[in-house]
């Protein structure tokens, strides 16, 4: 076995580290550890001279392991891996100790911070001892893309990719394109026509030579991994078709909440209680009449139907407040003398020009009535003959504290956006996780909101969470850009630090298959052992920790490496105590 020669570099990070950690004392202490050839400090290790220092030392001192004690590996692990690679060492023979975020930034005692730094560096030193070289791998990318859902999200993404000259397969569950937007009359905040918005997109999608639309089709199962997926579609009247594609965009949308489960509102019992989507249709066809065929004189719009309530959905549906105000504007122009009651819980004006739209609409002579959507929903009942109206809403009005009765002829329920009924089938097919509200989980809620933890699978539009048209379109175009990026590169790197199963130790219990969040493990029926698909594995380590037989090893996180890291840190703390 070759001699282990470790070089340790401690970064000052200007004064970020050196102010709280005595870097020279730490270097002296670490320099005494076995196998450590040299321990140096430098003002900025990440700078070019800092990296050059490492490269020069590797050559002149024949180092074969490198430890850098600096900031978080999230920031500069890649920088230093590249530097050691440049000097001819495998990048995985490098380890980083975080003595900034985990030490100098969070402590106030210089001597204690210094001993903690020494412990952290010693741990990295004893760990790097057991590192072994790993090979970087990449897979080719099939330039075709599968898009699930023919609404505005799916079509926008499809057009973006097809316009760049790449093949798109668009799978639509129903027999027409357009999704929910095609059911709207106007859009907020500019009151422009939804139909004029969606029609050209539908036309373009249908006529695009590079987009193939499959109607009345659903995806049952997708096989493969990023760059190389396949599926078999059951197309009505055509039979089976096998498709190969490199990326998947999921844009399956949502469904409106069914308000008949809320007893207070009497939806289904009273014909003049309608949902927001039914009202869209009424206003779109120009028949704004009660079931008896009369013009309504008093119209109530109840907000948060199924939203922000522990019994139904706790989340806010985000767009309904503004849609309700849009209705107000439409009612006001159709029936100038009608009384409009906005029965709301909180007015949420999210998005560009939404607050201005709200402010403008408040001047439309609306009566705003506030209710407690947690504990006391308004109750709709039938009016008596003497009441001169169809329905009576009784409610506790929060801003006045009064119990009031509101005489109305029509009630519009602003129903919540809820996950689609077949969303579970979709996520199972493509390997995406769902949150508690049945919306798909993105890779990072802020920094990577369209990707998922499964490589090559992107989520856009309302299947990721309630959102308006601009945000949906933005996501669709963002996902398309990500897909086109991988197609342009031609290959995608896959994870190096994956798990592997020692088939001699594997007992075939399949526990690992149950816990794997990426569906990367499958069972080999012939050998009766589990096998890892390394293109799908993200190296999270869950299977390795779960395996009762100890048959699974995570590369770069072997038991040896982790235990020696623990030993390193403990050795230093016990040494401190003895002093």
């Amino acid at each position, binding site marked *: 076995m070759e001699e282990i020669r470790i070089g340790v570099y401690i970064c000052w990070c200007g004064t970020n580290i050196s102010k709280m950690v005595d870097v020279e004392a730490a270097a002296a202490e670490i320099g005494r550890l076995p196998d450590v050839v040299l321990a140096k400090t430098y003002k900025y290790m990440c700078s070019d001279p800092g990296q050059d220092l490492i490269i020069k030392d590797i050559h002149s001192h024949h180092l074969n392991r490198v430890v850098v004690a600096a900031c978080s590996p999230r920031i500069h692990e890649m920088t230093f891996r590249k530097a050691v690679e440049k000097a001819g060492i495998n990048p995985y023979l490098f380890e980083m100790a975080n003595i900034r975020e985990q030490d100098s930034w969070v402590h106030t005692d210089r001597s204690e911070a210094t001993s903690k730094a020494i412990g952290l560096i010693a741990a990295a030193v004893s760990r790097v001892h057991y590192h072994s070289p790993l090979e970087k791998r990449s897979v080719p990318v099939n330039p075709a893309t599968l898009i699930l859902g023919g609404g505005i999200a799916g079509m926008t993404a499809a057009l973006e990719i097809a316009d760049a000259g790449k093949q798109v397969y668009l799978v639509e569950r129903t027999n027409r394109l357009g999704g929910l937007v095609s059911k709207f009359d106007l859009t907020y905040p500019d009151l422009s026509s939804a139909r004029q918005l969606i029609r050209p997109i539908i036309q373009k999608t249908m006529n695009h030579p590079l987009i193939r639309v499959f109607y009345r089709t659903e995806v049952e199962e997708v096989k493969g991994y990023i760059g190389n997926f396949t599926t078999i579609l059951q197309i009505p009247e055509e039979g089976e078709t096998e498709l190969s594609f490199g990326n998947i965009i999921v844009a399956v949308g949502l469904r409106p909440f069914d308000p008949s489960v809320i007893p207070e509102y009497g939806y289904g019992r009273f014909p003049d209680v309608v949902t927001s989507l039914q009202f869209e249709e009424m206003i779109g066809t120009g028949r704004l009449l009660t079931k008896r065929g009369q013009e309504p004189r*008093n119209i109530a719009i109840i907000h948060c139907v199924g939203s922000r309530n522990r019994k139904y959905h706790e989340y806010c549906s985000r767009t309904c407040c503004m849609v309700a105000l849009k209705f107000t504007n439409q009612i006001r122009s159709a029936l100038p003398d009608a*009384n409009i*009651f906005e029965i709301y819980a909180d007015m949420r004006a999210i998005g560009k020009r939404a607050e201005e739209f709200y402010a403008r609409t*408040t*001047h439309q*002579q*609306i*009566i*705003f*009535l506030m209710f407690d959507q947690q504990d006391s929903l308004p109750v709709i009942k039938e009016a008596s003959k003497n009441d001169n109206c169809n329905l009576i809403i*009784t409610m506790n*009005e929060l*801003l*006045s504290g*009064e*119990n*009031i*009765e*509101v*005489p109305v002829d029509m009630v519009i329920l602003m129903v919540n956006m809820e996950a689609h009924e077949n969303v579970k089938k979709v996520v199972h097919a493509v390997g995406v996780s769902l949150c508690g509200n049945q919306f798909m989980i993105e890779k990072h809620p802020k920094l990577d909101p369209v990707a998922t933890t499964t490589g090559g699978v992107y989520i856009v539009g309302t299947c990721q969470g309630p959102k308006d048209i601009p945000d949906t379109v933005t996501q669709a175009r963002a996902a398309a850009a990500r897909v086109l990026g991988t197609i342009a590169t031609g290959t995608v790197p896959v994870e190096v630090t994956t798990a592997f199963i020692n088939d001699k130790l594997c007992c075939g219990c399949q526990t690992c298959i149950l816990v794997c969040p990426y569906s990367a493990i499958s069972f080999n029926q012939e050998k009766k052992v589990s096998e890892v698909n390394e293109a799908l594995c993200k190296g999270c380590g869950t299977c390795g920790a779960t395996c009762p037989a100890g048959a699974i090893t995570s590369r770069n996180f072997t038991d040896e490496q982790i235990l020696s890291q623990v030993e390193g840190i403990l050795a230093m703390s016990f040494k401190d105590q003895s002093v």
Partner: protein
Amino acid sequence: MSTRVNPDLRNELLKFGIGDWNACYHCGNCTAICPLSETGFLFPRKKIRLMQMGLEDKLASSVEPWLCYYCGDCSETCPREANPGELMMSLRRYLTSVYDWTGLSKKFYTSEVWELSFILAMAAMVVVFFLKFLPAMGYTFTRELTTEGGVKINSFAPPDIMEMLDWIMAVIVAGLLISNILRMYYKIVWKYTNTKVSLWVHIREFWRLIFNFAVQPKFSKCGSRQYWLSHWLLMSGYTIMFILIVVYLPWFQTEKVLPWWHPQRSLGYYATFGLLFGLIFVLVGRLRRKSVKFRFSHMSDWLFIVMLTLTVSSGILVHLFRVNGMAMATYVSYIFHIAILVPMILIEVPFSKWSHLAYRPFAVYFQQLQKYAVPRKGSKTTPLWKRSG
């Protein structure tokens, strides 16, 4: 017990000068800054809410609009420029029409045609009375009165007849006003509470009515003292003049010009000074529109000021012409004075802005009654005077 919403109330209230009733978003700054709002009697926000929702009955039983003296702090603090002060002012106009059982108050507040027609009709009646009825009764309005022996005011307008007419008018006006006050009492104290008020409390708290009428202590706590002072001068001048004319006309209206220090003249001078000072203050304020209090003027506000100014100035002219022996000018200005005075009293006191002279002190009295009200059987209401904070 829930209250029915009247969605059409807002349209009705617009005519009373309510303005943009929907601007308020209920932050509550107005109530926090108000120097007069107190536990159990919170305003203006709560009243604005009732108005927005169209809770007619709740509004009709509200005493709070009369407890507001419009310092304007609320309007200046309002982040939505909803003018809560002016909304309270509009509510006072509305409530005046609610208390009035004849329905005339609403007509006068909401229709210029009604108001002007009434004024012109009354003025015409006065002129006809002087030119036709008095001569028919033997009091000739002829050249003799003007040529010999100075101003024969008592021959032109005999004080006994004038006093009798004064009393008739006073009885009509008082009858209307008292019946409206009873309606106000019914709505505020009697009808809408789960409580009752003992007779002893009614008697014990009665002094507040007199005290608040005479001193207006609440007004003095509201904004700058100069408003209270100018209003008090106006009010005291008006009251003195009213008593002199209605009760002591034969003593007040004499042909002999008494020395200036004689109470007949000095009281008249004080009353005139008080009226003039108050009027000029209000006129300048409403024209400059600098203070929030005077920024918005409803038709009824202007009409009141204009009529009072005309009454006072024609009264001064009568006095000047009479003291200087200008007979014809005295008679003409006298007729003009009465032709303005009569419609003004008839409109303003029972039906319009001036009725606040009764409603405000009565409101303070009723507020006190509400505080000491005890729960009726079966009601769990805690009496206001027992509540803390």
